[in-house]
């Protein structure tokens, strides 16, 4: 199971890398979103996938599954939500003000 998930993470990272290398801002934002999904899966896998019972001490028999990666992912998901929301708004405002969503045109040495 771990091997499968690791391969899935690899595919996600490849897709995200492809997206983030493009010039269009929206594609870059999608790329970062896919990146964050990949890393959440990675944290889950590195903390070992389900190996035992639910981690309710004394309610179920040992061995327990590590619950910590899920707590970490939960925090990371919330943060990536916030950042994605922020950069989407930022991209929209930039498009409105600067009039382009092409990163090459955003280099900006010209008007300085």
């Amino acid at each position, binding site marked *: 199971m771990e091997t499968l998930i690791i391969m899935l993470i690899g595919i996600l990272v490849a897709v995200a890398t492809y997206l*983030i290398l493009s010039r269009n*801002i929206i594609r*870059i934002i999608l790329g*970062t979103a896919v*990146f*964050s999904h990949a*890393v959440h899966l*990675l*944290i889950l*896998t*590195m*903390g070992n996938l389900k190996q035992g019972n639910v981690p309710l001490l004394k309610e179920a028999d040992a061995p327990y599954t590590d619950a*910590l*990666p899920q707590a*970490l992912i939960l*925090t*990371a998901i919330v*943060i990536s939500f*916030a*950042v994605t929301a*922020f*950069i989407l708004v*930022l*991209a929209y*405002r*930039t498009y409105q*003000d*600067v009039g382009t969503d092409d*990163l090459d045109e*955003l280099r*900006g040495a010209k*008007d*300085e």
Partner: protein
Amino acid sequence: MNNLIVLPLILPIMVGIVLVFLRPYVKLQRAISLITMIGIAGISVIILNRVQTDGIIRLDFGGWEPPFGILFVADSFAMLLVLTASLVTAICLIHAFSSIGERHEKMYFYPFVLFLVAGVNGSFLTGDLFNLFVCFEVMLLASYVLVTLGGTKPQLREAIKYVVINILASWFFLVALAYLYGTVGTLNMAHISERVAEEGQGPLLTTISILFLIVFSLKAGLLLFYWLPGSYSVPPTAVAALFGALLTKVGIYALFRTFTLIFYHELLISHTLIGIMAGITLIVGCMGAIAFKDIRLIVSYNVVIAVGFILIGLAVGTETSIAGSIYYLIHDMFAKAMLFLLAGTMIYLTGKSKIDEMSGLIRNYPLFGWMFFLVTCSLAGIPPLSGFVGKILVGQGAIESGSYVLLALAFISSIVVLYSLLRIFLNTIFGETIISFEEEKPMKMGMIIPIVLLGIATVSLGLGAEFISDYVTDAAHTLSNPSVYIDAVMGGNK
């Protein structure tokens, strides 16, 4: 009483939330935010002194003892930085009162500054790597807002790059965390250090350490600093000063923490790499500082040079050089804030940002001109001022361990700093004035007072080096002997 050490994180967040509801009352917002920052500085002085008497203090949240719970650890290094960060923020706030403008003030400027400080202080205090990530994100999200606040075209343009780079850096941080958790099975920094020492730092852990090095270098502007000059030169003066003083320093703090506490076994690989990166940073930063004529860019490249210099202390890795780095870190927070405020005020006074287009400011604003001279001397490390002690100690450490190349680079970079700032000085401060008597803008008291305060800080830091040397020595001792930190965290309940 240990609950005290959560205040530098909690207080700014709480006050920031309250300030959101006080949006129309600008004067009240100013007063409350300034009092909060001074209060935090006061609290950190108390904690700093308690650390001297009682040793390292820790706070386990919810009573979960390490390594199971999350915790805050206050040692001298962290508290010195919290204290400096709070003081610098308070001073930058005073400058913001007169320079930032009502539009910013009504768009939640003060709450976001407080959130930024909360993230910075949290990063310094946390004893848990995942919480370090969370505090980084708190700080970064606030900084994203502060870069974009105002919404001018260059700001939006640079902000996109700044945000994307930082999202990628955070992604690498999570990857490194995941690998580390998979390898050692814990996230408490002291516990990780213990486990790494038990099992030995094999090739896998060294790779993970290099991943951490990349992450924190991106945040600190060590070698991977190409995003820095752009994004530090676009926001308003007070914000740029805050960024220049605080943001890269958090990355530097994280580098010191991880590479002295956790990954100190493979010095030949990781610390050599840090040394090479610091050397290249110095060279490229110096080129940048000389190449440009835009004063904001020159000042931003000076941030890069300072980062390279401080990390030479880490690369050398003796107790003396680490003490020197800590001195220089504290000095640099004050001096860089001062430099950014001076540059911003210069642009405000003349309306120009190229150094060729300004001249003779000292004739119109004598105090301002002398303050620029003061910061130039301080950054170059002229003896009575604050940069001197740090430079001497780093140099001494480099000689002790025989890192002559780094030593040479460090001191040549000081000369370049002196040259790049003297170039500004000669072009803009000296010479015939181009501002006629009628056109002369009055210097606002709110702008010159914070600059003078920072000037006093840099002088007294240099003259009072004896006074803070106890704290710095203790901090360097803790950093170069990881067992002190580990014992304080893992050794039973205090």
